[in-house]
């Protein structure tokens, strides 16, 4: 068991005041790993395309999968870099490595890294992959569904991932299979990059160059609060909320609707968005995060994430309403 002290600022979030959890709070979050797994998961899939219907809990996509002997719902979450298991159901798993990381306010965090023998998502199989074990209980309590874990990005980077909220399914294509249909599904593209297994959309929003995280686990979009004024011009603030932070301090969050976002040459209308400080995330990862696109972006129409060719493909439209 290797114990490593890492002097990276890992942002750690704490559950605050659980009895006050109000129902129906949109969830925005991504998983902050202390260290990337050493092993890259190797998917085994005998078919060229695999359709995964998902259960929509709030604005989250839940997909049934089996880890060893447990079957249940996992959140399809590109905001998580790899497989993350809900500690409540995976306490018995031995840690293969312990990381003690220094978080904000000098709080030390224990992250348990473990290994699972098998992960099966219908016909898609993985053997002996690494996963983190973390407390995801508040996601369950918030969405009132049993959640066994998060299916993170590096499980899917061999595929073209099609997300269709209307049909309520995710389709995994082999690159060859996608080639055959790509002209049919869309000719509009958005360039993406993959850093630390986070999907980043690099673009220009209302005139400003931005780096946005594409996070299927974000039920609402997020904008950083230090961008150029032009970005906020179409942002209508409807509500200000004062929330309780990790060490008792009060934090303000502004929520509203981004009436119009011009991302590269695509126009998106009416996306529910919150504005907050994202510099903490940027510090941890070592690159700027200017915003997060999630459900509000996905629901505008089917998108196809082509990891190999580093782009998101969708239907060309005048605007995405």
């Amino acid at each position, binding site marked *: 068991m290797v114990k490593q002290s890492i002097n990276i600022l890992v942002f750690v*979030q704490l559950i605050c005041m659980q009895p006050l959890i*109000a129902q129906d709070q949109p969830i925005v979050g991504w998983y902050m790993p202390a260290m990337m797994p050493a092993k890259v998961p190797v998917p085994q899939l005998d078919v060229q395309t695999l359709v995964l219907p998902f259960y929509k809990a709030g604005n989250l996509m839940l997909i049934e999968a089996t880890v060893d002997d447990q079957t249940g719902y996992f959140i399809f979450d590109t905001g998580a870099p790899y497989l993350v298991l809900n500690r409540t159901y995976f306490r018995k798993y031995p840690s293969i490595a312990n990381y003690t990381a220094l978080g904000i306010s000098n709080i030390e965090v224990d992250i348990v890294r473990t290994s699972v023998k098998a992960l099966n998502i219908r016909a898609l199989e993985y053997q002996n992959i690494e996963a983190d074990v973390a407390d995801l209980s508040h996601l369950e309590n918030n969405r009132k569904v049993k959640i066994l874990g998060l299916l993170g990005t590096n499980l899917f980077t061999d595929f073209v991932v099609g997300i269709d909220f209307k049909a309520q399914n995710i389709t995994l294509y082999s690159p060859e299979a996608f080639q055959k249909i790509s002209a049919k599904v869309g000719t509009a593209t958005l360039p993406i990059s993959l850093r630390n297994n986070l999907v980043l959309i690099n673009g220009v929003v209302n005139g400003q160059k931005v780096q946005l995280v594409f996070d299927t686990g974000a039920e609402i979009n997020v904008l950083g609060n230090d961008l150029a004024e032009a970005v906020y011009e179409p942002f209508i603030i409807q509500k200000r*909320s004062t929330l309780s932070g990790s060490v008792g301090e009060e934090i303000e969050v502004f929520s509203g609707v981004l009436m119009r976002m011009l991302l590269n040459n695509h126009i998106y209308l009416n996306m529910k968005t919150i504005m*907050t400080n994202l510099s903490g995330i940027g510090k941890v990862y070592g690159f700027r995060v200017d915003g997060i696109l999630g459900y509000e972006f996905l629901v505008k129409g089917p998108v196809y994430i082509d990891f190999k060719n580093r782009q998101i493909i969708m239907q060309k439209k005048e605007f995405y309403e």
Partner: protein
Amino acid sequence: MRIASLWLLLLPILASGQNGVNYKISGDYILATIQLNQPKAQIDSIVKSFGFSELEKIETQKSELGWVVKSRTTSILVLSQNKKKNTKELPNAYTMGDINSVDIQAQTRADYGVNSFKQRSVFTEGSQIRFTLNAHQKAKQVYLSGTFNGWSTLATPMRKTANGWEVALPLEAGKHVYKFIVDGKWLHDPQNNKREDDGNGGYNSVYFVANYVFDLAGFATAKKVSVAGSFTNWQPLNLLFNESTNSWRGVLYLREGTHAYKFIVDGKWILDPANSVVRDDGSGNKNSFTSVGDTFYFRLPGFLEAKKITVAGDFNGWNFDELTMLRSKQGWVLPYVLPAGNFQYKFQAFGKKIADPNNPHACGTGDFRNSVLAVKPNKTFVLRGFANAKVVALSGSFNGWNQDGFTLENTNGVWQISIFLPPGKHHYKFIVDGKWMIDPANELWEENEYKTKNSILWVEGPGLN
């Protein structure tokens, strides 16, 4: 310090006053314009929410949240904040949006239900309910998903038939919400007229498994017979059909409990001629009464000298004047229909309220000690290894984390209680001689806000086990 989670759930401790406050971003600043022609109490709470103590001399105060007074007239107050100064570093934030998160308990709640089909596609055959989809014959795989299997996309595959697809499974009486999944695509039942919003721009289909029959004999020449009752908010329900030339019948799902009702025959409201249970509604009208569910017998042995004994509980608003018990040879009894659930009750004799002397399960202490009864219990909690404890109680999300809990009964050193738990997730702990602890026999637990542990358990929906 062990950190429980890597996702932040920020909770509103103070929703900002949305009345009369407008926000605008101007350069690096957020401007909040507050209308001052509102009730003082409202202004005070708005001003407090911005981190000031009061409107008076607000210019001399310092806001904990970094707001500054920009301008003030008699009708408007403008505050500003440098948005970049909001340095609380939170990569994750939750906001007060309206996310449609419907749980199975809410989806299956209904006072009553009647099915309606274009062409019947769901059939009740004894205890089995058969779902059919006569379409998509060329599909590779079709699944049935619904509230009865936790909306699983895998648990209930349908099998191919000559006309399409079908599957049969046992379902209890009640409301069931479902959809088909055809080659990975969700589809509501095209033949079922009963449907509801699925929160995703489409529909879920609804099927009611019936448990009640309304019969009306006679009225051979009537054209239309409906029923109306407390369960329909007295709106007529066109439920009954000519069963034979001289009788009418209607089948439906009716929620457990007691219901008032009347028939409406060609516009005329009548009591149920076959039902002797008739009660005044307090306004001079009489209604027929029926009840659905198991009968529980409240019993109090002895007290034979008493003239009147009543029983009351949370099922009747603790009204000790309402339910008079009947004398039997050994004491007193009252048959009463209760729906599935956990109830507290007490008897009243000689003006004094007493708990049930024969019920080992109670809640509360002293004068507030009530007896606890579970109707249709579906979960038994057992605690071993504490044979010598004096009092063991169960407390959890199902009883509001009651400080005293429901007491368990000790039989040969093993403590036990059976209660009813609706489908979904439940949190609980034992209280052993005043000390709270998790269930040693349950490997599932979560850390709570006090940094101690709660045991958790999931109860599957009806039809799953």
